[in-house]
């Protein structure tokens, strides 16, 4: 039983499991498209950390970066991919299984 739990913990998606990335994915799962500025404010991450974590999520194929212009100002937004949504749902399911009694 203990071995199974340990395996389940080791099987957790490390890309999603990191707190900053989990926060980013949670925000993106609640919207269609989110601007960098909002992610910065709502997660409380620093610009550098947010950029670095977003790059890791993009490299994993979990989010998509959208660059656009608002007037002359460049605006960066993010969108969750289907792969990212599946990964987050799978992570939630794994955590629920690991922490019975928690929703």
């Amino acid at each position, binding site marked *: 039983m203990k071995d199974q739990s340990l395996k389940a913990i080791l099987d957790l998606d490390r890309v999603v499991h990191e707190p900053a990335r989990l926060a980013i994915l949670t925000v993106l*799962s609640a919207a269609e498209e989110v601007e*960098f500025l909002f992610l910065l404010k709502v997660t409380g991450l620093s610009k550098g950390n947010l950029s670095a974590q977003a790059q890791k999520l993009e490299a994993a194929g979990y989010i998509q970066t959208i660059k656009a212009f608002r007037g002359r100002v460049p605006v960066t937004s993010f969108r969750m991919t289907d792969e990212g949504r599946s990964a987050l749902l799978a992570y939630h399911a794994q955590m629920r299984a690991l922490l019975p009694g928690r929703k």
Partner: protein
Amino acid sequence: MVADLAQLDDLTRRYARYRPCGAGLGAFWGGVLLMALTGLVFRWTVTAYGESSGAAPRTPDAYWQFLRSAPLFPPPWLVLAAAAVPFVAWFGITIIQRWVDRRFGTVRAADDRELRAVFRGPRWIAPAAVGGLAAAMAARVLFDAAHGASAVGIVGLLAIAGWAAVWGRRSRDRLTLWVMLTLSIPPLFIMASTDGASRMADATVGIFSTYVFVTFSLLGHGVRRFRGFLSVRRDLAAIQVMDE
């Protein structure tokens, strides 16, 4: 960093829901424009009534009879103002939206259901209603060609219908769409009134009075949305940067 994931989810959804239509301020902008145009319409009809040479006593009934019977042409300044209203309204809402977004940015709602304030129908209903009514009125003005069709009126009607296709595509938010509908229908009546034979002055005054009441309902939605937005802004502002 915010530890509670449910709170993150809730903040994002609330922000996405309350942000559109300039966080409800677009409804106020629409209200101001409609009131201004209503004032101009009453100024036009009351002035025309005052200048009429009828010997009848000046009563509300006589005014209404005058509107029903006199072939009234809206003056060029009123036609210009009416044609400009849907355009000015949209640009105003866009500017207000940018001002609202300057602090926390843009978030687009994942679910269309979250934007169904005012009415639950599909998003195309509002622009389609404007386009349909504009086409019907343009046809009516054209068929009145025996009396001299008004080119200005037809161009104005088609411009408002074409603009409806633009704002109808750019927004999913029902409050924004409804504000634009409310600001597009009354100007159509002014455009159709440019055909004097149509005798639409009474219908124009009637439709403005009706839409002023509709505007009050939209203002109620605007107030609710703005209050929701202020509440989510307060919650966002309370988040501290707790990064390593």
